[in-house]
């Protein structure tokens, strides 16, 4: 009886995992299709759609817009998010939980509302299509992600190490640079990666702020999906999935680095 139930659950889980992964896998297979139109399964395979993607100046332009915007959003949100997370872990102020939940509001508010409000202001300043500005706007929605990741990783930094640094005569800035940042480094790097990814994949804010000059990859995909399901979209999508894969892989490496540090610390005390 118990075994039958276990088998049913295992079967269900296998099916669920399949359903979760099939959409991702199918896009990757289609990206290598050798055919001129969308068909599954493809009867021949080639790199022609990747060639079409990287060979088209407009797609390359979108790729560089995406990269620049994501880098700006990543740097701003990682720096500000690190300071904020440090304030939450070490600061002594009232209503911490409320202050934190206010800082997280940009993930909860529908992006359409945020995007339209930003568009309203951006149009007034004539900044539509300005990649630096879009990067700053993306930072608003990537900042909460950084704070959430760094909160847990900074909690692992022993306050006594900071106290020791200060009592030995190190300045605040020195202790920050030589103690806090090195200890929190894996967490800082993974939060930066996820901030980059969140901006790289963001569609709605970019859709409103991009104009014709700064269309990111998700915006170009969105525009094409309204016209026709052309196979080059599969190649671009597969590229975005690959970026996700790389980020997750790096995060895994950083996690093992962090765990190694944690056990090292435990061993010495």
């Amino acid at each position, binding site marked *: 009886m118990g075994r039958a139930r276990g088998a049913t*659950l295992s079967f269900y889980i296998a099916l*669920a*995992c399949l359903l*979760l*992964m099939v*959409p*991702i896998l*199918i*896009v990757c297979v*289609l990206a290598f299709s050798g055919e001129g139109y*969308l068909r*599954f*399964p493809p009867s021949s395979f080639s790199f022609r759609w990747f060639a079409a993607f990287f060979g088209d100046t407009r797609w390359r332009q979108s790729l560089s817009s995406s990269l620049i915007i994501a880098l700006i959003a990543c740097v*701003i949100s990682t720096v*500000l998010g690190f*300071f*904020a997370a*440090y*304030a*939450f872990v*070490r*600061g*002594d102020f009232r209503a911490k*939980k409320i202050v934190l*939940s206010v*800082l*997280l*509001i*940009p993930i*909860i*508010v*529908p992006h*359409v*509302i*945020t995007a*339209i*409000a*930003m*568009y*309203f*202001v951006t149009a007034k300043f004539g900044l539509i299509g300005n990649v630096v500005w879009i990067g*700053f706007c993306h*930072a*608003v929605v990537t900042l*909460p992600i950084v704070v*959430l*990741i760094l909160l847990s990783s900074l909690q692992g930094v022993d306050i006594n190490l900071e106290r020791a640094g200060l009592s030995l005569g190190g*300045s*605040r800035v020195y202790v920050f640079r030589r103690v806090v940042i090195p200890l929190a480094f894996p967490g800082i790097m993974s939060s930066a990666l*996820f901030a980059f990814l969140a901006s790289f*994949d963001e*569609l709605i804010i970019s859709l409103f702020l991009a104009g014709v000059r700064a269309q990111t990859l*998700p915006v170009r*995909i*969105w525009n094409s999906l309204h016209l026709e*399901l052309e196979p080059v979209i*599969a190649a671009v*999508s597969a590229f*975005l999935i690959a970026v*996700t894969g790389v980020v997750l892989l790096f995060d895994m490496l950083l996690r093992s680095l962090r765990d190694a540090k944690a056990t090292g610390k435990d061993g010495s005390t």
Partner: protein
Amino acid sequence: MTQRAHRAFDPSLLLLPAFALLILLFVIPLVWFFVGVLAEEGSVGAVVERFVDVLTAPGIVNALVTTNWISALVTVLTLVIGYPIAYYLANSTGWRFALVLFCIIVPYFTSVIVRTYSWMVLLGRNGAINQTLLSLGIIDAPLQLLYNKMGVLIGMTYVLMPYMVLTLYATMRSIDTNLVRAAYGLGASPLYTFRKVYFPLSLHGVISGALIVFILAIGFFITPALMGGPSDVMIAMLIERAVEITLDWTSAAIMSMALLAMTLVLYVIYYRVTDVRRMMGA
């Protein structure tokens, strides 16, 4: 002297840059948008009148009903489908755990537009599912799976599933399985044990997961816009149309305020029942 400098420094001040960004690029644009657009109506009375007009217009009432209905269905679907997955995650180790987590995490961090596109490819008239069913002789004509409510439900359930599973998993991980064993030891049936012991212990995760999925669902735009039909218009789509197509900024502002109010009320409830640090399922 340096010692005094340390004491004078308050780490709380490091919050200021983050809040400066939030105020400059989030709060001010929102307030400016709402106030700026509504101020053009002239008087307070005119604004109130527009509010009543917009929020009672049949198209908008319809969209609000559709939005809540689809969001509720998606919440139930993610819960029913995701609950066993989270249970499995919480009660397995080694490669099984890693594999299932992998299958949750990869879609979770894949762009929403990519995930929506892949379902469009799968569900289309000549998509993979229809072609498979046709070639197996299960159906004679392609099924209409896309551009209707079915499409929206499949797409949104898929996109929001990881939030539900990870939230449930966070609660289930801390359930003491000895309690379940004790119930079995005392002769309780599996169903009785689940109803009276395990489910009540996981209820906190169920409520948190349902809230976060519902909150995210009511603001959804990309998936319903691409996968829905003419009768599946959600409120976020109407807001976008008002700005992009009809250029009716007043309606857009009023609908945005209504949606924002709904979201924030639900967020306050979410804040009360759960730990906001778990929001991303970490």
